[in-house]
């Protein structure tokens, strides 16, 4: 029977590697812009590790894990990877985090004027991100849907919203 500690250690190593690779890769990508979208860049890094897990299982299997152990590792790693992606996303675009940081740094206009963040700036930034993520395309200054992946995710979240009885 495989010891729990080995499985936990394996997942920890994967998550620390993800974090370190992202820090190094983010700085390189910022300079050379290999991948245009920061979010797609994390997905790229995360999937490199996904491939490494499969590679390690087939060719090395250092801890002599069973297939079910790898399935477990794969699920847990990808869940925490998704959490990290969301955390990064929050640090980039969450308005509540932006407000808290501005208030903490006591920036001028932060809390006395709640409208200090420009509406159009917020929306334009999101439009750019959706273009980078290839969810939108722009033709003659009009925005068109180019993929429905995020739209389908949005619809799933709306179903979940109904389940929770949220109406606002």
């Amino acid at each position: 029977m495989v010891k729990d500690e080995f499985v936990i250690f394996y997942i920890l190593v994967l998550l620390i590697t993800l974090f370190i690779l992202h820090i190094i890769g983010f700085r390189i990508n910022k300079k050379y812009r290999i991948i245009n979208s920061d979010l797609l860049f994390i997905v790229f890094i995360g999937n490199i590790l996904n491939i490494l897990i499969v590679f390690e299982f087939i060719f090395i299997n250092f801890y002599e894990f069973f297939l079910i152990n790898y399935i477990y590792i794969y699920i847990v790693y990808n869940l925490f990877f998704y959490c990290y992606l969301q955390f990064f996303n929050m640090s980039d675009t969450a308005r509540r985090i932006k407000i808290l940081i501005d208030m903490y740094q006591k920036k001028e206009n932060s809390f006395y004027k709640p409208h200090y963040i420009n509406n159009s700036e917020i929306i334009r930034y999101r439009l750019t991100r959706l273009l980078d993520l290839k969810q939108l395309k722009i033709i003659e200054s009009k925005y068109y849907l180019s993929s429905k992946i995020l739209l389908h995710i949005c619809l799933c979240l709306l179903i979940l919203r109904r389940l929770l009885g949220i109406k606002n």
Partner: protein
Amino acid sequence: MVTILVGILFYLVFFFISIIIWNFYKPKGEIKPLLISLIISFIFIYLFNIIKNYYFYNVNIIYSNTLSIILYMAITTAYILTFPAINILIPSFKILTIINTKGPLKSEEIIEYFSASELIDSRIEMLKNDGLFDNNSYNNIGVLGKIIAIIFIIYRKILGASIGKG
């Protein structure tokens, strides 16, 4: 396999509790109700282990409780981090649904669908409801708010990125 199923079961308890809380109490904030769901589900896990050890100790099912709890924590964290997008239709998703229903639009036309109160005031109100302001005023953030701000400032510094645009 049982480890994975037990982990999912633990999460379903958390999810079921959050459904009850949101349907019956309709909370305004997010942090406190999620925290309550988390605490109740941990109590369930604790009771589950007591019942299993005292009454079903002779049942020969091989699974790891530690790994189940780790899986439960992973799913729950993923759910909690997705929750803001569930609770309020985030601007990116709203943009996609607007274009999907209204057809191709110019950026100025899309911006018209968003009001300042929707984008900023509602978020300030939510921060207040979650108790992140000191003494319930809008003038100062509380200890938890400061901790959250510091975590994100340090994270962006480690990444070598400027503070997010919000």
